[in-house]
């Protein structure tokens, strides 16, 4: 949370000349990008543009060929994924990756792993400290589940939740890391327009109440245009445009990337 309280000019997360290479293929090519503190920004681009790869690079899943990632003022380049997560970069997954055979509450508690302190013996003996810690974790988990709107199903196995609830649970789980940056990978995939509309409100609420900076990958243009304060467009691993929704909508390179050259002619 302390990161979020820094001055407006500092970026919550900054990627500097990020490059990811798979053998001879350059999946992300020297992308420089930042998430302003308290901002909601989006990353869009056609399929295969390298959006998710970029996400994975930020969260430490892929090794960087070049470049640097800064969280606040801290260099997190090359750190192990669980360390980056512990420092406050939380994410959700494009194809939901919950712990299906754990309850909603347990799912959230797993993400508190780094915050909890009790060890093996404390857990076996159940020291007063451990009990208190577990009680607080339980309360916090329920609070988070209430926050995302699925508090009633806290005792339900994650795999039995409805699709939309699973998406919400993923957000709750990510928030349990007490992150300063929240990365959402296609959060409205598979939702109908009404649900997507509700979701945009939800993203604003998360940002405002949990004081996080949000980065979205999104396909649904109506969601992107409504929710984002700034949009970055990737195409074939390169950043081709960046700006407010209005700028992006009229950007020729973006239209070209999405529709191809002829499409641009028709569209214009």
């Amino acid at each position: 949370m302390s990161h979020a309280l820094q001055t407006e000019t500092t970026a919550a997360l900054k990627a500097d000349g990020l490059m990811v290479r798979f053998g001879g293929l350059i999946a992300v090519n020297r992308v420089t990008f930042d998430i302003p503190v308290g901002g909601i920004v989006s990353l869009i681009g056609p399929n295969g543009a390298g959006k998710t790869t970029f996400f994975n690079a930020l969260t430490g899943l892929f090794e960087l060929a070049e470049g640097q990632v800064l969280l606040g003022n801290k260099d997190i380049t090359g750190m192990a994924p669980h360390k980056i997560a512990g420092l406050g970069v939380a994410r959700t997954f494009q194809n939901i990756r919950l712990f299906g055979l754990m309850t909603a509450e347990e799912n959230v508690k797993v993400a508190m792993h780094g915050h909890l302190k009790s060890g093996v013996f404390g857990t076996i003996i159940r020291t007063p400290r451990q009990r208190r810690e577990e009680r607080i974790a339980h309360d916090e988990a329920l609070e988070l589940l209430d926050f995302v709107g699925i508090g009633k199903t806290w005792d339900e196995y994650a795999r039995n939740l409805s699709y939309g609830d699973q998406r919400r649970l993923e957000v709750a789980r990510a928030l349990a890391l007490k992150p300063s940056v929240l990365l959402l990978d296609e959060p409205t995939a598979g939702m109908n327009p009404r649900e997507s509309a509700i979701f945009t409100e939800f993203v604003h609420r998360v940002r405002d109440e949990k004081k996080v900076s949000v980065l979205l990958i999104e396909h649904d243009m109506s969601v992107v245009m409504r929710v984002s304060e700034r949009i970055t467009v990737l195409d074939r691993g390169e950043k081709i445009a960046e700006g407010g929704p209005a700028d992006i909508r009229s950007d020729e390179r973006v239209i070209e990337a999405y529709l191809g050259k002829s499409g641009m002619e028709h569209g214009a």
Partner: protein
Amino acid sequence: MSDIATVVPPTPSRRGVNIKPGLRWPLGFLTAAVIIFLYYYLDTYFRPAIPDVLHNFVATWLPLLPINEALIYAMAALGLNVVVGYAGLLDLGFVAFWAIGGYTAGWLASGFFFNQDIRFFGSAFTLNQATGGVHITVWLVLVAAGLLCALAGVIIGAPTLRLRSDYLALVTLGFGEIIYEVFYNGDNLFGQNVSNGNRGISPVDSIRFFKFDNTGAFTWGDVGPFDVLSKFVFFVILTAIVLFASLRIREGRLGRAWLAIREDELAASMMGVPLMRTKLSSYAFGAVAGGIAGVAFAVHVSGVFPDRFRFDISILLLAMVVLGGMGNVWGVTIGAIILAWTNSTGLPKAQSLITDSGSKEEVGTILALAGLGLIIAGVVLFLRRRTAPLLTFIGVPVTVIGVVLFAAKRDVSFQFLIFGAVLIIMMLFRREGLIPEARTRLVLREPGRTEAEALGADMVDLAPELERLPDENVHAGGSVPVAPRALTGEEEAR
């Protein structure tokens, strides 16, 4: 044994911090232990109090020595359950920790290092002895074995746990063999004798514990090799400790992390769970239980012998975990006790019964052939009809009985045939084990919500704060209302 097996299954425990888990199983375990203890106490010291019929029956089918051994197996299986059931890491060399625990007892509580003379709260017997050796009280040896096994677990785990599933299983298998070979050939390890080779180390010191004198009066002293009842109490206490620790650890921070890794390693790491450290801790935790079982076994047989630590024990332990129900400590305990009992008492006694009964070898042959015929018919028909598995279901036991009748007459060992058949039947009809963990049963028996939806189940209630469909049945008992159009053929009809 039957006392344990017939205990009522626990009410589905509500997860949550302030809700106490059901006490039925722990009480059942305790009751069974107390009943066995009281019976054998009376049987040993007040023999007339027990009716002859009961005495003969129990002496045949439920002797105390195999019960003790079963408890030791239960400890080791519970340790393996942490690795396999909780964290989902397949370990085929778990007997290694059992061996390390056993040899720790051999080193620290026997006359093995005869040119040393270290004594620390050893038994009176060893303290008064003129010969040398390291004689540390077995209670401390338990701690030492736990620490050593945890260390061994970490050392072995560090390079191997980076591997996944099949590769990990193969490496652990190799590790189990290495440990066995090291101890087996340990009488000349670079010129040093570390294990007495295939002769093993014996005797291992006795424990200082309570026991009974000839009149059945309670005394405190050295438990001799034949004070089986004292050892029984000792093993019950150790098993209870391992059970308790397994149950408690499961409900904490570490237990959740293990389950998360079992469910989705990548997502777990993205949620701040350090993969290596968490996997190592499951390995170390299981190893400690294995080490305790090793010391207990050394006490049980008053010695350590490398032949007791072969690969088949690893497989037997794994079979116990699978049979009982991976991840459920009570299931694993019962699986271990049943298999250990079958192995040590059930099958040999059944064999001698058959031998004495005067049945003909030909009967066995005919039954075996008939059973095989049924299986083959079942397999062939299985390709066409849904009812055909029934034939296999009948055929497998008939074959097994036939072969057993045949083998018993010829005095051939057939226990692995039985184990194999049991495992095959289990995998066909009850994959989740005898007393499965609720989670495992779910994944094997019911489709997940998203899976059901993928099949076309009609359940669109994606926005919970909007008016919800009356879907109370969705959450009742974890069942999912599956109305897959694709399955009912509605799709084709349109």
